[in-house]
């Protein structure tokens, strides 16, 4: 069998897009709030199951189900910030405490889903348009193309929003220097909350796209979070374009790697890549190592 380059490329782009949506939200929250919000993975899985509930169980219209799902993920991101992280930060808890509580939140969310929905995989049941495009031996469905296009458009929008709007600039300012931002009159606590809302919205969209394309299982949040995190670190955790690139690299490494290795090594490939970057380029591809100037 010849090396199915195109098919592997398609697969890499599909999963890379999902990782990128997770990674940029994580990176946005990390760079403004300065701690690892691993419960970001919970937002993804909650979105998947919320869509399943509204669309499959309650038979609501797809668009309405999606809008409700997005509203729920944004609220959950905001509430995690408001009820858990913010009080901890006000008590001057260390980032380790925040990290541990974020992992606890992720485990809690996944287990609540396990409790209510059971361990078996769920399918949204949207009849996927089977007809796809065949280029040589490679196949890609319309839904998969849609998934890639939506992700890329959103990622470009996010980039333009951060670069060219006042609100985006203020978010970057808070990420850069929170104390100075406060002195310049920016409402830092509102901007921190806002980054949670935007980040969780992106996680929610990732959850919806997965729900439309693949099956759902309660533990998928953790696995996606790890992949998104790896993508963000590889690309440079403070950089949105870096996180996007890193996520596609992770997607590519997994898919091309498992052509040579058994597919069970997927996660091992990601982790090897992650360790290599942490050892030799800890700031990531787009990270800048700059001296501190007064």
């Amino acid at each position, binding site marked *: 069998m010849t090396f199915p380059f195109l098919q592997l490329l398609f697969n890499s782009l599909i999963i890379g897009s999902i990782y990128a949506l997770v990674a940029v939200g994580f990176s946005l929250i990390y760079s403004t709030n300065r701690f690892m919000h691993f419960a970001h993975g919970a937002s993804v899985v909650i979105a998947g199951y919320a869509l399943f509930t509204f669309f499959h169980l309650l038979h609501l219209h797809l668009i309405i189900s999606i809008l409700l799902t997005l509203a729920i993920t944004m609220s959950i991101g905001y509430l995690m910030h408001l009820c858990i992280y913010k009080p901890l930060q006000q008590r001057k808890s260390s980032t380790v405490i925040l990290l541990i509580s974020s992992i606890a939140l992720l485990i809690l969310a996944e287990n609540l889903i396990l409790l209510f929905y059971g361990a078996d995989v769920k399918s949204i049941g949207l009849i996927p348009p089977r007809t796809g495009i065949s280029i040589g031996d490679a196949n890609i469905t319309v839904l998969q193309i849609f998934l890639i296009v939506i992700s890329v458009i959103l990622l470009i929008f996010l980039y333009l929003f951060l670069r060219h709007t*006042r609100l985006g*600039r*203020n978010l*970057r*300012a808070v*990420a*850069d*220097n929170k*104390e*100075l*931002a*406060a*002195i*310049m*009159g*920016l*409402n830092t606590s509102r901007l921190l909350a806002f980054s949670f809302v935007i980040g969780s919205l992106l996680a929610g969209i990732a959850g919806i796209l997965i729900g439309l394309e693949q099956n759902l299982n309660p533990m998928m949040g953790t696995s996606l979070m790890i992949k998104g995190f790896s993508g963000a670190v590889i690309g440079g955790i*403070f950089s949105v374009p870096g996180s996007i690139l890193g996520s596609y690299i992770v997607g590519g490494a997994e898919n091309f790697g498992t052509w040579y290795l058994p597919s069970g090594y997927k996660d091992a490939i990601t982790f090897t890549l992650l360790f290599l970057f942490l050892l030799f380029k800890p700031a990531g591809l787009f990270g800048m190592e*700059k001296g*501190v*100037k*007064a």
Partner: protein
Amino acid sequence: MLQITHLQAGYGELQILQGIDLEVKADEIVALIGPNGAGKSTVLKSIFNITTITQGQIIFKGKNITGLPTYELLKLGVSFVPQGKINFGELTVQENLELGAGMRDKAIIQKNLERVYHQFPALRERKEQLAFSLSGGQQQMLALGRALMQSPSLLLLDEPSLGLSPKLQVELFQMLVKLKQEEGLSLLMVEQNAKKAIEIADRTYLLEDGKVALQGGKEILSHKKIKEVYLGGR
């Protein structure tokens, strides 16, 4: 313009200022000097409500501004250039300046931007550069420029000469005097360079252990205390 009466403030349980009385009049440069830990920066931070104020009052243009949120202070015309990381390194020079103007409308921002670029031509040449790539002197200019974008009437400066070469320090102090004369700005600055500070200031306060130990005009340069402790003239 600014009157501080019997200010006691600090950080949490730790009280630094033990009752400070201080005044800045219109069109005046006032310097705060003193040893490390005397509470010089704490005075500025208290005006900007970043400390815990336990007693005392801060009056600006007849209005009690004690504990007012930052955006209110900026609106009233008080700007603050802190110490340390004084710019947004990952933002461009122009973004740094625009951010200084807050939520004003575009026309006013543009006008202020032109004024600042006129004042600091080096910034105009580098307006698309990321701020962290500027030299120390340019960084200080950018921070000043950003504070001026608010069109303040009172500017608080925390050790503006820190980390600058002697030549740049001279330039900076000239710039501050010029700002006072041309823009009618009042300045309250903390300085570790006691001699230079007293020379350009209209009045100087010497702080020790959270109290005002000495105050006066340029004549305090020859005061025994200043000579002995700060100018090495034993």
